[in-house]
């Protein structure tokens, strides 16, 4: 149930592309099937550095993950201090518009391959903030989410399950969300601009993608 | 008509020419003669040098025996005479070429300067106590008048102050002369010297004290020198250069001449003078630290150097005495340089306050450079002449194993650096708004340049002249030789 507003519109360049995006699964990357690639995927799977972005109440659920009780480190999951070092961005809960800018900025600063996990109902459809004027309802429109973990809030066990699911995807060599972001950068940027207006973060990544992405 | 070239010309010539001044005004020869007279005397001195080096020249102009004027030109007094006349040439040339203030280029100034030179020459040459008093007064009166020549309030004030203190000094000196005559019945220096030891001790003491105060005021020693900065400040710098360069040197010479001649053992008096010299030096250098007026600063610096010379001469050892005489010469050169440069700067910048001199060295590079050279020389920095003489003095003390004067001299030099370099820094202050006017009287730099050249030359090659100073020191110190020369071997 969406609350449509002028600011957060669905009137993008055509609902086809939007629909296509939503239906696109995560096909296995055709190019990456060699032994080395499998090995690399396996390494990636075993080592996930998490940039936990405490956007909402989900932040409180992130902490126990690292403690003795849940011990995410046994999966190779460990916190990273800066986006440059992180592999996974965890959006923990509802995303205010003010926060969105920072989240986009952080996401764009991460080095590929990078993944996004979104926690809770709020990131899926706004959840209890469905009619808030300043909360992003559907994170997927602004950032390519790989895994949604539903619940309000999801317990750490659920979080671990989500991480394991992500690890399996990585191990399978599926294309991550960052591919989607790269290929549909114009769409994402348009969505972002619609919400953020002149508060848009710098267009470094946009320029980079458009320049062909080669150093 | 052949005129014998005798020392009497040193006194007679300037006097004669001075009193014939109306003639020179008419002939427009005033300025050339102002330079020419001392120049001629300098030439005469140089001509007499070979003779003086073999034996002192004695001359007695008999009025009626035993009355007469005794003149005595030995190696020591030759140095002073040459120095006095050289300074006369330089200052005269500066006044002539430098387009200085008109009152210094008139007849009055001409007379007074020549009288001053004559008086100084006379003081140095005379072998007679009373003549000494007379020449002292001649020099004194001309100096008072020279100070007041500008006739504005500061100049008159300087003249008056100088006159009062100078007269008091002369009275004390005269008192001493009277006492000496009453005790010994003689006025001839040599004769007095022979009989001086027979005067009872307390009377010797009294005479000594009177003499010390009389000459102490004139030679600017510490507790008697408070008048100096005022006079130097009130007078034209060129005149002040004569005071510092000629007058004080002549008095200093007289003081030590008397001390070394009268006293068979100058040890005690020498120690007193050394003490006074040291105090003079330290006090003057310290006070100079605060001076904001260029002329006063130079005055205090003069005092400090006088103290140094007194300290060196008072020690009474050949090497310090030679060094002291050398330093006298150097100090005269340096003070000529500094005061004349100050005159140039004062003309351009009107005020003598330190604040008004900011950037003067950049606006007047040549004057600035000359001032720096003079300052370096006066502090005794090599390779300038001040260093050579200071080294000589220090070496004398070190040879004798007496180190406290070494320490004091070096301390004083350090304090001296404290204010001289302050002035140098101000001279080269970056200041853009210094108006660079076209400099008039470029020729004024000529005599100063000559002095500067001499300072450098004497600093680099003092060996050219060091014999003169050694001989001078010997003749100053060697009492018996003088007595024998004047009074005959039998005395």
């Amino acid at each position, binding site marked *: 149930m969406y609350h449509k507003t002028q600011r957060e519109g669905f009137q993008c360049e055509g609902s086809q592309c939007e629909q296509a995006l939503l239906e696109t699964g995560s096909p296995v990357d055709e190019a990456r099937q060699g032994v080395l690639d499998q090995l*690399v995927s396996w*390494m*990636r799977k*075993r*080592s996930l*550095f998490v940039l936990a972005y405490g956007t909402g109440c989900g932040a409180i659920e992130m902490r126990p993950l690292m403690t*003795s009780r849940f*011990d995410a*480190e*046994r*999966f*190779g999951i*460990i*916190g*990273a*201090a*800066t*986006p*440059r*070092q992180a*592999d996974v961005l965890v959006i923990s809960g509802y995303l205010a518009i003010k926060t969105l800018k920072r989240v986009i900025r952080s996401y764009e*600063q*991460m*080095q*590929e*391959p990078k993944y996004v996990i979104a926690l809770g109902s709020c990131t899926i459809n706004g959840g209890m903030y469905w009619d808030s004027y300043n909360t992003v309802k559907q994170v997927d429109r602004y950032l390519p989410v790989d895994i949604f973990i539903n619940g309000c809030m999801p317990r750490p066990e659920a979080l671990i399950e989500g991480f394991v699911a992500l690890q399996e995807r990585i191990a399978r060599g599926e294309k991550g969300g960052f591919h989607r972001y790269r290929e549909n950068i114009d769409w994402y940027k348009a969505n972002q601009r619609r919400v953020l207006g002149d508060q848009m973060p710098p267009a470094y990544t946009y320029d980079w993608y458009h320049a062909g992405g080669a*150093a | 008509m052949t005129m014998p070239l005798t020392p009497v010309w040193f006194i007679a010539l300037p006097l004669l020419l001075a009193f014939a001044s109306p003639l020179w005004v008419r002939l427009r020869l005033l300025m050339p003669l102002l330079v020419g007279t001392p120049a001629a005397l300098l030439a005469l001195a140089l001509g007499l040098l070979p003779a003086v080096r073999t034996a002192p020249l004695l001359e007695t102009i008999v009025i009626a025996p035993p009355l007469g004027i005794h003149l005595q030109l030995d190696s020591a007094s030759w140095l002073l005479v040459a120095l006095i006349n050289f300074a006369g040439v330089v200052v005269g040339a500066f006044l002539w070429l430098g387009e200085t203030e008109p009152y210094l280029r008139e007849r009055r100034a001409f007379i007074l300067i020549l009288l001053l030179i004559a008086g100084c020459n006379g003081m140095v040459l005379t072998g007679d106590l009373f003549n000494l008093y007379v020449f002292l007064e001649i020099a004194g009166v001309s100096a008072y008048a020279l100070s007041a020549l500008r006739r504005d309030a500061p100049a008159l004030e300087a003249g008056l102050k100088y006159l009062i203190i100078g007269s008091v000094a002369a009275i004390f000196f005269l008192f001493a002369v009277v006492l000496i005559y009453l005790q010994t019945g003689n006025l001839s220096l040599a004769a007095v010297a022979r009989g001086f030891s027979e005067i009872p001790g307390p009377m010797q003491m009294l005479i000594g004290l009177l003499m010390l105060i009389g000459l102490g005021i004139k030679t600017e020693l510490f507790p008697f020198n408070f008048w100096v900065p005022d006079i130097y400040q009130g007078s034209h710098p060129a005149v002040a250069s004569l005071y510092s360069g000629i007058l004080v040197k002549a008095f200093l010479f007289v003081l030590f001449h008397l001390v070394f001649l009268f006293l068979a053992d100058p040890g005690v008096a020498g120690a007193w003078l050394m003490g006074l010299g040291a105090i003079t030096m330290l006090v003057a250098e310290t006070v100079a630290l605060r001076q904001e007026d260029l002329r006063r600063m130079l005055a205090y610096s003069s005092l400090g150097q006088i103290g140094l010379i007194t300290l060196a001469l008072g020690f009474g050892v050949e090497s310090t005495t030679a060094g002291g005489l050398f330093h006298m010469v150097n100090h005269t050169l340096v003070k000529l340089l500094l005061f004349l440069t100050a005159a140039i700067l004062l003309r351009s910048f009107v005020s003598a306050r330190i604040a008004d001199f900011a950037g003067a060295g950049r606006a007047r590079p040549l004057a600035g450079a000359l001032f720096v050279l003079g300052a370096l020389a006066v502090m005794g920095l090599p390779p300038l002449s001040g260093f050579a003489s200071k080294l000589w003095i220090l070496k004398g003390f070190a040879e004798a194993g007496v180190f406290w004067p070494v320490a004091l001299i070096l301390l004083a030099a350090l304090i001296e650096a404290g204010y001289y370099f302050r002035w140098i820094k101000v001279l080269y202050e970056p200041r853009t708004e210094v108006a660079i006017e076209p400099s008039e009287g470029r020729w004024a730099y000529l005599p100063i340049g000559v002095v500067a050249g001499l300072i450098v030359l004497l600093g680099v090659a003092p060996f050219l002249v060091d014999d003169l100073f050694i001989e001078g020191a010997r003749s100053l110190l060697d009492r018996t030789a003088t007595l024998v020369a004047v009074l005959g071997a039998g005395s």
Partner: protein
Amino acid sequence: MHAILDSLAMIGVSYIMGFLFYGFYRQLNARVQRRWGPSIWQNFFDNMKFFFKSETLVHGPMFFFGPMIIMAGAFTTVLFVPFLKDSNWLQGYSQYGNLILIIYLLVVGPLGNALAVGSSGNPFGVMGVTRGLTRLMGLEVPFFLGLGLVMLQHETTSVHAIMAAQDGLAHWGIVTNPIAFCVILLPFIASQNGSPFDVVGAPVEVYAGPRVEFGGRLLGVLMTQNMMMSIAKLVLVTDLFLGGATNILVLILKAFALFVLTTAVSMVFPRLRTEQAVDFFWKVPLGLGVLGVILTVWLPWSA
């Protein structure tokens, strides 16, 4: 040829030892905290993952060369530390160096990297570098004083000679010169970026410190050199105080023992602020060092 093989072997050994030791450290840490902890290979995985990141951000040439310099410094350090005594192998170029050179080589790389940090333009990184340098300033004093005691004891700066002098347990440095060992122990932990003194890279306080801008493959390089450098230091201390080793197993054993000792200290103390750490070094280890100097040099019965 031998030299090349030997060098490669040293680099390999130090790398393997490095990630295994750190893997062990993480395991042990987890067990102390009643967790399972990651696998002992976890550091290797992390390292490899970074090496195979498909994107690496650079801020300019200096930013790129910094990690290269630090890596080259790590290689050089490793090659100048003799791993074994009485052996042809694992010697590297150690006979061309000496103890003081090694101590300085340990700093060359980090300073090169500090340039890269600076050129990134991130103030947090530079702040971290400054903290690192400050800590270095604090720890080097007692550390070097301890080494000075050792150099004095053996009258040489050659690590080979010092190792050779320690034949038999009774002649081990830790026995003959226990004060020196005590003096260097805590600074040694700090130089390993061990726990009470690890404020340099503290994520919460300075946002990861010097590494704030490094990601991808460059971070991989930094991790690698860190592990190798640690091993080089461990081996060095083993050489100086534990009598060196004649074969690789003994070496690993001794180094591991030392590692466990430092780990034990690391795990139980909370983090100190930089100035606290420096002050601590200048009071406790340095005081101990001064005591050592008085005992070994100043007192009349000492040589």
